């Protein structure tokens, strides 16, 4: 166990952007809120419609909670996007780079199995990073709330500055759960990137992206069908398709969202756990990881 944690630590030493990129994004978000609200936020000239919206909001606690839940939840999105980008390039580079700089000969001179090496990298991408991104957004969310609360105090926007503790806890728990479900959904893509990383002699990016595209184009040309393209598209966007209906409902049909529990239902990705697609993906990820381990075991070109 110590050995596995040491391996994961090593990944963060080497790929410092995993740690810093989401953190800097969150910091920028906090700073942008601070300066943004100072510049534009002190003089609230609301139109009639907006003024009506906020006075309604002050009168309906449930709507207040919903709005609070949605904007607290959406604060995760920038860090998430940045996190996904750095994880993508991390996975592509990690097993390729060790062969390029020949440090693989050092790693392989130590009693570490190829399985622990590959799995430690996967665990960093699929477990550590979601939790890290979540933790950052949790803290930065509180900071941003405090800034907003201070800025809107005494204005017509004051309902935005009301803290809803139980809703906040629920939102954070739901987001963590969603991130881990997303990690399961995207596990086969992560594992695919690791396979390419261990396999490619050069330009792993092209190896990862071009062959699937090429096969899809060939299918289109040869059979006029788009099954492969649909398959890839489903894997890339399926998670959001699954989460979206709940969010759409929360926007379109306000009457259905009366309670905090319903707000959770609207945000939660848990229904995806019942989808065979998700578990087939997890199985493919396991097979791809086994392949990456085997390839690394016998790769002999450093």
């Amino acid at each position, binding site marked *: 166990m*110590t*050995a596995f*944690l*040491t*391996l994961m*630590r*090593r990944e963060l*030493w*080497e790929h410092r952007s995993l740690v810093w990129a989401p953190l800097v994004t969150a910091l920028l978000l906090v700073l942008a809120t601070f300066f943004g609200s100072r510049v534009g936020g002190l003089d609230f000239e609301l139109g009639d419609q907006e003024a009506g919206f906020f006075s309604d909001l002050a009168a309906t606690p449930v709507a207040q909670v919903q709005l609070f839940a949605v904007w607290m939840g959406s604060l995760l999105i920038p860090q998430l996007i940045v996190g996904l980008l750095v994880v993508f390039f991390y996975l592509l580079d990690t097993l390729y780079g*060790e062969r390029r*700089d*020949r*440090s*693989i*000969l*050092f790693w*392989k*001179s*130590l*009693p*570490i*199995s190829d399985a622990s090496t590959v799995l430690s990298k996967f665990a960093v991408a699929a477990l550590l990073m979601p939790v890290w991104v979540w933790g950052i957004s949790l803290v930065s969310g509180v900071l941003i709330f405090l800034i907003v609360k201070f800025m809107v105090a005494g204005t017509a926007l004051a309902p935005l500055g009301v803290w809803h503790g139980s809703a906040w806890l629920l939102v954070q728990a739901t987001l963590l759960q969603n991130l881990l479900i997303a990690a399961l959904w995207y596990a086969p893509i992560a594992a695919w990137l690791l396979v390419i990383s261990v396999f490619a002699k050069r330009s792993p990016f092209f190896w990862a992206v071009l062959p699937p595209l090429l096969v899809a184009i060939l299918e289109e040309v040869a059979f006029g069908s788009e099954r492969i393209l649909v398959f890839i598209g489903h894997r890339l966007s399926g998670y959001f398709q699954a989460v979206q209906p709940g969010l759409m409902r929360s926007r379109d049909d306000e009457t259905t969202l009366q309670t905090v529990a319903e707000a959770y239902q609207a945000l939660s990705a848990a229904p995806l756990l019942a989808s065979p697609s998700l578990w087939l993906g997890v199985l493919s990820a396991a097979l791809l990881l086994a392949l990456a381990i085997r390839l690394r*075991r*016998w790769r*002999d070109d450093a």
Partner: protein
Amino acid sequence: MTEDTTHLPIIEARGLSKRYGRGTLALDDVTFTIGSGRIVGLMGANGAGKTTALKAILGLTPFEGHLQVLGQNPSRERDALMRDVCFIADVAVLPKWMRVSQALDFVSGIHPRFSRTRAEEVLASTDIQLHQRVSQLSKGMITQLHLALIMAIDAKLLVLDEPTLGLDLLYRRGFYERLLNDYFDHQRTILVTTHQVEEVEHLLDHIILLRKGRVVLDCAVSDIEARYVQVLASPERADAARAMQPLHEREVFGRKLFIFETKDAGSYAGLGEVRTPSISDLFVALLGEHS
């Protein structure tokens, strides 16, 4: 595996072969045994198969034939084997981004036989600072760092693949001196490959010479005296010497230098000055152009 393994050979290779693709054999039916507590030189020209043999021993490449390292099959039991085996491949394979302190943290986190105190002791005698990154160290210092890590691991077999390639003379000397004085204790076995024979010949107990994937010499250094003889003959004795089938002949200061595989030790005295060849002499004789 309950039997006592202390008297078993450290490495045992029988009929070891390795072919890359459909090309030539990198190792061609190689057989040798390496006993415990030895310093063994695996030598040969570039491309003779040294590195391939090491890769097979370290379980880094598949092979044909029988190979046991510390009683284990390096192909199947690599993970367990590497607890007792250390190796330095070439120079400068330590990752550039790593700090010296991280290297210590890392190895102590994953190696059950690593003593951090010992590594720090060794490092204290160098100019290396704990906060430095590998990228800030010279090639010689990187090798010192690697050696410090290795010396702090209680391993049974140390494998060195051209460990001093590209280093300047002071570091090369220092490397082997340190290894010999502060590490080697006759409980361990060291296997070193190199094509720079002069550098290691004074410290070896045993040599294995490879030529085009085949073993051309497998001999304890103490047996060289009994097995080989070198004769410095005057030119007029050259023909007589040639008649005795020398392994090698070259010219030194107008006289001829012959190396023979000894058949009858007394019979060479008549040809000229008789000596025991050095490892370098044998290296040249057995691997040189004319053999």
